[in-house]
């Protein structure tokens, strides 16, 4: 008897998670041309900034992940904890930390102001906020991937005359590819959905989540639903990409 009830438990969660999305779709009514323009603009800002954030995360985060994976000193342990901390920190707090240096009152913000450049409320600030929140996902995933690469393969490469850089590019990187790509996709979705830190640092130009928030304040649920649905769709696409690349990378791990 108890088991019969228990059998339904998973479905209840599924229904709970799916129902709001269906309900939101049902609230979707025709969007005015002006709103469509604003929505497209926010979507463009979000995707473009998330893309830049992802590239920055790859450029800096992958080498950092490698360093953390191969390092043996205790310092690495501390560095790792600090680097990963934005994942467990509410993004609002991360945003506040960022403001403390990038706002006109902060050290770097002040310097930039002096040379006639306002950091906050720019596309650049959006990227700064997203990078702070989303790049740790790349570091975490890539680090785990590098740890899965047998260090003996790197030794073998070195003994065959390859230096550290060639070894990294020819052996470590290709073998960690799957985890790195997964991490970058995570970073991308997290950046697209970033609200808290962006809200603090770059209320403008409006990204999708900020647009969602402001349209909700202005016109309630109906007004905000289109932005929420676009965010949901981007998430679904990235999830499908993740599965596809994951399978592909897993299936062709040997053919490079």
């Amino acid at each position, binding site marked *: 008897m108890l088991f019969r009830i228990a059998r339904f438990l998973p479905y209840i969660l599924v229904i709970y998670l799916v129902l709001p999305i269906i309900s939101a779709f049902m609230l979707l009514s025709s969007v005015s041309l002006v709103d469509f323009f604003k929505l497209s603009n926010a979507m463009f800002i979000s995707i473009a900034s998330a893309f830049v954030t992802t590239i920055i995360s790859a450029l800096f985060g992958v080498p950092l992940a490698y360093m953390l994976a191969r390092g043996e000193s205790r310092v690495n342990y501390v560095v790792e904890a600090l680097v990963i901390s934005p994942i467990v920190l509410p993004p609002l707090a991360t945003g506040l930390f960022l403001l403390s240096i990038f706002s006109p009152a902060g050290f770097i913000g002040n310097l930039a102001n002096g040379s006639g450049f306002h950091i906050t409320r720019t596309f650049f600030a959006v990227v700064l906020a997203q990078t702070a929140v989303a790049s740790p996902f790349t570091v975490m995933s890539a680090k785990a991937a590098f740890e899965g690469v047998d260090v003996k393969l790197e*030794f073998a490469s*070195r*003994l*065959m005359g*390859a230096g550290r850089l060639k070894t990294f590019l020819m052996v470590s990187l*290709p073998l960690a590819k799957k985890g790195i790509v997964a991490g970058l996709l995570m970073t991308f979705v997290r950046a697209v959905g970033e609200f808290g830190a962006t809200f603090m640092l770059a209320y403008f130009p409006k990204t999708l989540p900020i647009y969602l928030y402001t349209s909700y304040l202005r016109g309630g649920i109906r007004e905000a639903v289109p932005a929420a649905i676009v965010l949901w769709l981007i998430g679904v696409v990235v999830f499908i990409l993740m599965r596809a690349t994951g399978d592909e990378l897993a299936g062709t791990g040997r053919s*490079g």
Partner: protein
Amino acid sequence: MSLLELEEVVKDFGRFKLHVSGTFDGLTAILGPSGSGKTTMLNIIAGFLKHDSGRIVLKGRDISHYPPEKRRIGYVFQDYALFPHMTVRENLTYGGGDHKDVAETVEIDHLLDRHINQLSGGEKQRVALARALVSEPDILLLDEPMSNVDELMRKRLVIEMNSILKEFGIPVIYVTHSRREALLIADRIGVMVGGRILQLDRAERVFEEPANRKVAEFMGAENIYGGTVLKSDGELLIEWSEGVVRSQRAGFKSGDEVVFCIRPEYVMIVREGKPLGDLLQGNVYEGKIVRRINVGGMFELVVKLQKEIVTALIPDHAYHRLKLDSREHVRIGFKKNRVHVMPKF
């Protein structure tokens, strides 16, 4: 001058300390129990691990502080460490160098376009060997290369590897914990225990004349006893728990505490009523057979003397001729030229 010299190379891990010296030329097996520091030594030679002090000189070059890529060392890893994302050919040509001759000698030319996960254990081993040789290293290091191949194949593979290595003519260090493998492949054997090479010499020498008790134990001498030298004029007269024993070895004086050993295959069964040969005179003991083990073509007899246990290895025909299967009491003899004497630590 194609050889490797380790000069007082030390690596202190706190709980474990590696301290090795020695000259390596030809085909040397480093034989030792697991945890004795064999792989650590290879890792230091290859430059994966930094040593605390001492010098590593390869072909006259002091490579102590060179990065691995500058050392000109070939390495075959225990699990081969082939690049899983490349083909056999890509693995071989990774470091540049001409792979065709090597592939032919190692007989893997038919495998060149295979992927690594399409190879059997034995094939992987050959590819790993070929890969290590392609870049024409000054020395080749092999870390337990047989541990991942089928036991039944091992002997054949060791013999084949021996002939391949001979063909390339570079010094080789072959790490193993198997005495059999070491004797099969190597001209020289270094016995490593507790981070030190206790003896490094020609294989027969290490086998017949171990430097100390630990080497004797590891080389399978089995019958190892303590004693005190009573007299040392021409031959040694040693007092031990079964009386006295005579040995033709030299280099000890009376009063020296020693360890002596005799391999099971050199323990004789002395026939009743037959005159003793010169070599057995005074080295005969009465005992009781406590165990008979058929080891295939040979019988291992465990004989209890008054206090000590002696293991003897007797060929089948002698075993049956002497009717050892039905006898209990037996006289055993140690040939004087086979009683090897070592200093007690």
